């Protein structure tokens, strides 16, 4: 089966997205109907069917906000507010982004270091690798609140604890991907390096590292997404100070459903941005190294 080209995809994808939006509207009307009916009864309002549907889509705290309500909220909080206001989504996204980025950088570095160690030292491979894999079967995100609170107790607050969680979440994909990548050169190529009388360092930098680059970027894409999740979850227990996670928590405390959805949208946009940045950098590096487009 050959991969679908962009042109093959565009129609089905947009159709399905349209269907999702349509279903969303219908669901919004249905889910908000009971509350609206109650309100109308209490206020003694008589509405026609069309007016009623319009009202269900314009509630201030709907059970399911309609897409246009979310979009308006995102637009207002992104473009109409000053960036420093704590109602601005840009501000919250920036807070989350900064800890995501720091965590991602440290996580990637740590992952690469561990991978280099594992590839070169046999004891490390045999004693560390099982634990690296086991560490991922552990629902480690559960540790997040503790890391935050405990570090907060000794006056380490703000960016660092959140970045720590992101680091933990993002080192794993990078470590595993890099081990695979550094091992990816074929025996034939390794033998060639031997015939050149290349030292281990030379083999490492001239063969293993270039061979591992595609693996590195593939795993960094996963890592950056994981890192963002880590940062968002890390913001939950801080008592809703700032960041997308805090926005979610505040929304759920005060039943501000539209705000929750807007925060979700902001988080998704952030994720898409981060992943595409990694993808683009990956392509540029690939090109700079003389890779041919597949």
């Amino acid at each position, binding site marked *: 089966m050959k991969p679908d080209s962009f042109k093959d995809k565009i129609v089905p994808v947009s159709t399905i997205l349209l269907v999702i939006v349509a279903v969303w509207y219908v669901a919004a009307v249905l889910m908000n109907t009971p509350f609206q009916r109650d309100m109308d009864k209490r206020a003694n309002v008589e509405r026609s069917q069309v007016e009623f549907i319009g009202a269900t889509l314009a509630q201030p705290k709907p059970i399911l906000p309609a897409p246009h309500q979310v979009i308006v909220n995102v637009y207002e909080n992104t473009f109409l507010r000053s960036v420093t206001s704590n109602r601005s989504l840009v501000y919250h996204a920036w807070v989350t982004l900064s800890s995501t980025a720091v965590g991602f950088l440290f996580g990637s570095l740590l992952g690469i270091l561990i991978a280099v160690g594992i590839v070169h030292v*046999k004891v490390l491979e045999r004693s*560390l690798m099982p634990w690296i894999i086991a560490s991922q079967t552990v629902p480690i995100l*559960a540790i997040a*609140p*503790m890391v935050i609170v405990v570090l907060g107790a000794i006056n380490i607050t703000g960016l660092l604890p959140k970045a720590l969680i992101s680091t933990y979440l993002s080192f794993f994909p990078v470590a595993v991907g890099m081990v695979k990548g550094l091992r990816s050169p074929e025996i034939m190529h390794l033998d060639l390096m031997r015939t050149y009388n290349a030292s281990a360092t030379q083999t490492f930098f001239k063969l293993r590292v270039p061979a591992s680059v595609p693996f590195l970027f593939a795993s960094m894409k996963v890592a950056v*997404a994981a890192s963002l999740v880590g940062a968002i979850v890390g913001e939950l227990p801080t008592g809703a100070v700032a960041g997308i996670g805090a926005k979610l928590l505040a929304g*759920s405390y005060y039943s501000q459903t539209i705000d929750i959805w807007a*925060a979700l949208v902001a988080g998704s946009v952030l994720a898409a941005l981060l992943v595409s940045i990694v993808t683009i950098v990956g392509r540029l590096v690939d090109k700079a190294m003389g890779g041919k487009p597949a």
Partner: protein
Amino acid sequence: MTRRTTDSWQGAAAILLGLLAMISIPPFESDATSIPGRGWSVAVFLLIFATAIASLIPMRRLVAAIILFAGAHLIAWLLIGSLSGNEGKATVSFGLLLAAGWVLAWRAATVLSSLKARTKFADYALRLLIPAIFGAWILILWEAATRGAGIPFILLPPPSAIGARLAESVGVLTADVRQTVFKAVLAGYILGCAGGFVAAILADRVPFLRRGLLPIGNMVSALPIIGVAPIMVMWFGFDWQSKAAVVIILTFFPMLVNTVAGLAAAGHMERDLMRTYASSDWQTLLKLRLPAAMPFIFNALKINSTLALIGAIIAEFFGTPIVGMGFRISTEIGRMNVDMVWAEIAVAAIIGSIFYGAIALTERTVTFWHPSVRGGQT
């Protein structure tokens, strides 16, 4: 096979560390309440030097490994044992002694990993033992550091305290596990995986759906879906149903994407063979493509096992009845009962590993034909 051990820098390092420890004696501050006697110090130093020197003498690897293993862990046992009553009073000398023990354990692991197992059982045992040494030393260092150096309990409780708390509150932990794992995670996991699987089969039947769903599924997997947790809690209430809903959403897409990829994994040759047998589409699906997709499906099941547990625990941060692992973690941390939080995390870790292990075992029996299981070249 009598291959001998080679030079060990760890042995030399252990001797050096031992000598340094001797210079900086005593291992505990003078105002510690129960300083161990002279016999203890002699035993520790003797053990360190004897084991280190033994590691420098060429001998059969198995013998060397046994000596090193026993020596290093005896040292650790003596050191940890001497800590009670002396909390927070350990000196540099104690740290150096511990470091010597650790270096020797490292040597033991190095010798062990250079061993070539002759039987399958021995290979298996080795594969467990080497990481086990690593894990044990993490615990030893953790215990010694927290109790010896007197790290505040809130910051990091020693493993022994966590273990004690774990044993003490079995009842509470069981109730939490029942609420979070047996109700929310299992229900959500089964429904989410089944849903993703059915959607994948549908997408496979209808190319239009596949072209549309696959890019969306790929994109969604990068999004922080965990953020729907507050919405689900609002819709389905505080009890386990809302957590199951979060788990369903989290597990659906990995299953969908992986299954669709897996269904495309069967080769052209095999497909052509099925055609020559005049098998119908459904027969091809059931007898060729689904079995070929199994490694992908199990991959999704494994990814989902972790996601499901995380999803349920995080969703509990947004509101629960007064039971559940996420609830316990968030309330106990508020009361600064850090040992209880660690106990809960330990339980979560064990359950996560069992969950994962069970799926991995099933995978081995289902995909017995796969090269990675048969032990051939992948």
